[in-house]
């Protein structure tokens, strides 16, 4: 089934990659700079924000799904956007799951960089923006870890996408929701095939991250 590139299976796979890929891209673009900022700057309310990020890192996806569902539901504040049960809703939910993870890992990593290294960058005349950018460059391993942790959490997540996407065949069905459905319906071979694909994606990505990490640190 995998080898024959079954069109239904391919569609599920591509949607999974599309939704989680887009969600992680947005989470990284928002989460890395804000993680760096949170790691370096002292401002009122910082501790509260850090607590929120840490809580967010352990937030059950199904709760995120519920909140997004309530916001996007027809009677909710954003009901008129008609986003519920669309891939956009799934992307929104996954961004909310991945963002605190990306921010939290980045923040911890940046705080672990040698304080003198930070002073050294400033002492060579870096502007604020150049300083932030250089820290991200120096912490490439951290950025990779944040990316890996964030993507890993959303590609394998089922609760939120199920709630806000609805698992509609051909529209919002992704690998995880398909596995749940096929298992329930007794289509074990399809469920196993989907499971193997999900496992292979995770394996492949981690191989790439591990390779990049080890190359940098060796």
């Amino acid at each position: 089934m995998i080898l024959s590139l079954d069109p239904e299976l391919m569609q599920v796979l591509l949607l999974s990659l599309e939704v989680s890929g887009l969600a992680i891209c947005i989470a990284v673009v928002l989460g890395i700079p804000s993680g760096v900022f949170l790691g370096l700057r002292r401002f009122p309310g910082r501790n509260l924000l850090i607590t929120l990020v840490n809580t967010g890192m352990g937030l059950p996806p199904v709760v995120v799904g519920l909140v997004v569902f309530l916001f996007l539901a027809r009677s909710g504040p954003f009901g008129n956007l008609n986003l519920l049960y669309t891939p956009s809703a799934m992307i929104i939910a996954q961004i909310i799951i991945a963002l605190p993870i990306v921010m939290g890992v980045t923040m911890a990593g940046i705080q672990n960089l040698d304080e003198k290294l930070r002073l050294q960058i400033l002492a060579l005349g870096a502007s604020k923006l150049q300083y932030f950018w250089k820290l991200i460059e120096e912490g490439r391993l951290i950025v990779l870890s944040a990316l890996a942790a964030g993507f890993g959490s959303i590609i394998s997540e089922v609760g939120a996408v199920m709630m806000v996407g609805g698992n509609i065949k051909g529209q919002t069905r992704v690998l995880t929701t398909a596995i749940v459905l096929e298992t329930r319906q007794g289509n074990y071979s399809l469920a196993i095939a989907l499971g193997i694909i999900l496992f292979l994606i995770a394996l492949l990505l981690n191989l790439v991250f591990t390779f990049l990490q080890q190359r940098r640190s060796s």
Partner: protein
Amino acid sequence: MKSILRLKDVEVALGGKTILNIEELDVRSAEILTILGSTGSGKSTTLKLMAFLIKPKKGELFWQGKKVRFPVPLVVRRSISMTFQDPLPFEGTVFENVAYGLRIRGIKGKELRVKVEEALELFSISHLKNQSAKKVSGGEAQRVALARSLVFRPSLLLLDEPLASLDPITKEGMIPELHKVLKQLGITCVYVTHDQEEAFALADRIAVMEQGEIIQVGTKEDVFFKPSDVRVARFVGAENLIPAVILSNEEGLVTMKAQGKTLEAVAPFPQGTGVVACIRPEEITLKKDGAALDRVTARNQLPGIVLSLETLGPVIKVSLDCGFQIKALITRRSASDLNLKPGDAIFATFKATAVHVIPEVKGGTNG
């Protein structure tokens, strides 16, 4: 000489406690000013203040005559560069490390390449340019750090113990090299160290720090041979500090009484002044034969007993009891010629000009 950076009545606090308190310190154009002090004396804090990396609690800083306001404009910050004890290499090649300061200043292409290569050449590391900066040896990494700090020709270069983590041989080789580069480029440099030899070898002027304060600023000759107070004297290796009282002063040649012994020195203080006679151990010569003293022109000749001998590499430190304890540094050859051993009777001789007299009351700064 023109002052490029002036610190005036500055105070830096950490956790409510004042850790730095400098009345006045000038960095003069094209000089190498060494800040000498022990660990925790406030040297590094002073350097961070000079790099405008920290803000003083009180006081004023003047950059090229103009008062500095925080946050300091980028253009002013970019006139200054700093290197730490740890070379702190960035990711990437040696070339890219050295190029960083130029890139952030918008310099690229051929100009960038030429400037980086010049800097690599200055520190003899051209052959390393394509290597990862994190994989070169300690001495090489420090050269990379120095090249990275100098490549954009800062108006002021701040070096925080840049050679402290190197082995003695590498360090010894790098001191004259660094001195040559700084003088060749005419770069103003503030160099922080706890090592008096390093300070002496590099400095035009030396500022001695203790407990967050500058206790003396002057030429290196002043600081080493005419310390303004006992703390400086101790720090620059004038180990013999003998309390005395001035008995007479005849046109600058003073006679002092120190624990029943008479000492002669050149000093401006009047009769009755309580002083400390300060003699560097290398200024003392030892004679075993009393008859040979006739041929010695030194005005101070003290009989004493050898207490102990301590070998310090190529020299030997001899402790003597001359009524008070003094220490002399002599070569191994002299020690063997004299056949010195504890208990021997000996004469310690030194010139009146070798005795630096410090008033007993803590002195101020000079220079």
